């Protein structure tokens, strides 16, 4: 076997364009504003959009505001939905005299059959009735247009709903492409006692081409990008309880980062990589999470292939648009609504054209004054979410010919599964790494 073969395998490359500007908050100044500003921006943008869609939907009906509703008059109203939930934890529960009402153990999902929806615009709010709008599907923060009429009880009986629908998609150039792969991995949780460093090392070795024969290496050479979708480290709870740390504990605090940096340096030396913050990473709590500080990765930042990105993260590779989050938005939807699987939630956020409709109600969010950065105005080609229980994927087709690959990326620490996407045809498959030696 020749050690130095005649032809060296070249890794394929693709052009990268970052579209994260919208999610950066360096230029924002906090002047004591409240969340009413971001809700106003959201309502205004979505209402303008929905208003343009109404003629194709029901052109014969008049449009009015909530305060202009008259009993029996059929019309269309626009507004933000608010879901009143009986079991939603409320800060006032701590102060209530009777302690027996709220259960001590928090449920994972706060839905109750008595939940109801309310529509709100600048002029007022009205309770929604009828069966068309199901409270189990919708959450607070979604902007919709409703067709119906006011009942004698003062509620609005909904006859039909208009959601924004999938945003328009920029057509990708159809030139025949070669196979180029993007690898997604999330939930590495380095620092957790149950995390197996060998699994991630295997992944790194596979991607960098240190594993396998020439054919395997040839496949690895077609991987052009790696995205690490949140929760890369996990700091043990004992170190985070607010006490002063002894120097021994301080070095324990840094160990996960050192380990991660060593692995990321190996990757960055080989191919471009993006790392996004997640809920367990040392980034800000409120969305949009800002990029992890470069000081955490002294070895990797020397490479220009290493990019620390925001969460949510939007970028283009060879003009294919990718959009995704580390999971907080979908996890919040799971708590406040229900669907048959996580891909359903992903699809709903696209149809509502909003990445995180529950922000700022139940999901931490920066109080923007002039825009809502989570509005999706261009349909991505690949829409991913990290830190989910299992790998799921489907291809979503829109009414105007949009095609989106939806991907749920599982937690690598628990499953050993990474996801590989072929940019040529948007096909997806799982890459599983196991370290059990079968006897």
């Amino acid at each position: 076997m020749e050690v130095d073969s005649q032809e060296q395998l070249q890794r394929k490359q693709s052009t990268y364009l970052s579209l994260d500007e919208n999610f950066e908050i360096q230029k924002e100044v906090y002047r004591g504003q409240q969340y009413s500003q971001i809700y106003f921006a959201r309502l205004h943008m979505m209402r303008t959009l929905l208003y343009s869609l109404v003629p194709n939907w029901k052109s014969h009906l008049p449009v009015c505001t909530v305060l202009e509703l008259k009993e029996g008059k059929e019309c269309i109203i626009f507004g933000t939905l608010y879901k009143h939930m009986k079991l939603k934890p409320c800060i006032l529960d701590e102060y209530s005299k009777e302690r027996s009402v709220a259960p001590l153990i928090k449920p994972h999902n706060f839905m109750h059959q008595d939940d109801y929806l309310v529509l709100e615009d600048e002029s007022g709010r009205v309770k929604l009735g009828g069966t068309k709008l199901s409270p189990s599907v919708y959450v607070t923060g979604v902007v919709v247009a409703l067709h119906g009429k006011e009942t004698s009880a003062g509620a609005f009986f909904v006859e039909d709903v208009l959601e924004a629908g999938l945003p328009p998609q920029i057509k990708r150039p159809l030139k025949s492409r070669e196979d180029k792969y993007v690898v997604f991995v999330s939930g590495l949780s380095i620092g957790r006692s149950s995390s197996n460093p060998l699994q991630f090392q295997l992944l790194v070795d596979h991607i960098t081409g240190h594993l396998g024969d020439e054919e395997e290496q040839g496949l690895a050479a077609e991987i052009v990008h790696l995205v690490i979708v949140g929760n890369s480290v996990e700091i043990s709870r004992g170190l985070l309880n607010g006490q002063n740390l002894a120097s021994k504990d301080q070095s324990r605090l840094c160990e996960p980062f050192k380990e991660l940096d060593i692995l990321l340096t190996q990757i960055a030396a080989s191919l471009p990589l993006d790392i996004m913050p997640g809920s367990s990473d040392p980034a800000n709590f409120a969305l949009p999470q800002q990029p992890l500080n470069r000081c955490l990765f002294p070895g990797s930042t020397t490479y220009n292939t290493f990019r620390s990105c925001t969460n949510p993260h939007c970028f283009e590779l060879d003009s294919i648009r990718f959009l995704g989050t580390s999971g907080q938005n979908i996890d919040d939807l799971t708590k406040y609504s229900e669907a048959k699987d996580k891909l359903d939630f992903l699809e709903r956020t696209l149809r509502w054209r909003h990445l995180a409709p529950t922000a700022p109600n139940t999901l931490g969010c920066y109080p923007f004054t002039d825009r809502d950065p989570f509005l999706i105005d261009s349909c991505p080609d690949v829409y991913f979410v990290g830190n989910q229980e299992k790998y799921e994927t489907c291809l979503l087709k829109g009414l105007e010919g949009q095609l989106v690959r939806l991907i749920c990326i599982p937690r690598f620490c628990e499953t050993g599964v990474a996801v590989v996407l072929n940019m040529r045809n948007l096909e997806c498959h799982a890459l599983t790494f196991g370290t059990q030696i079968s006897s």
Partner: protein
Amino acid sequence: MATTSKNMNVFYRQKKNSSASTGKKSTKSPSPKHAATFGSDITQPPALVSHGDDFDEQEQVLRQFDMNMAYGPCVGITRLDRWERAQRMGLNPPKEIESLLRGGKVKLESLFDGRV
């Protein structure tokens, strides 16, 4: 906040002499929804009326701008920022407001600044 106006007529002034009133929103039922700050039951929202500090026509125009719902909430954002936001969103806020605000002799913060 105690009312120390010089004359109670100022407190109960009717709205008719303000020409910058929001004509395009007259179809909405005119509920005094911002009366909460001072808790009085007068026809005109008391926040628009001064309480001892003198205000002029310009401030009155700017307060009407603050109160106009079409441009969004006014709390926590400077008047000029709010005007620019409305401009960016295509709401066509009146140019006079911008020139007043850039003129420099008026209060740049909304009327609720420091009071809420």
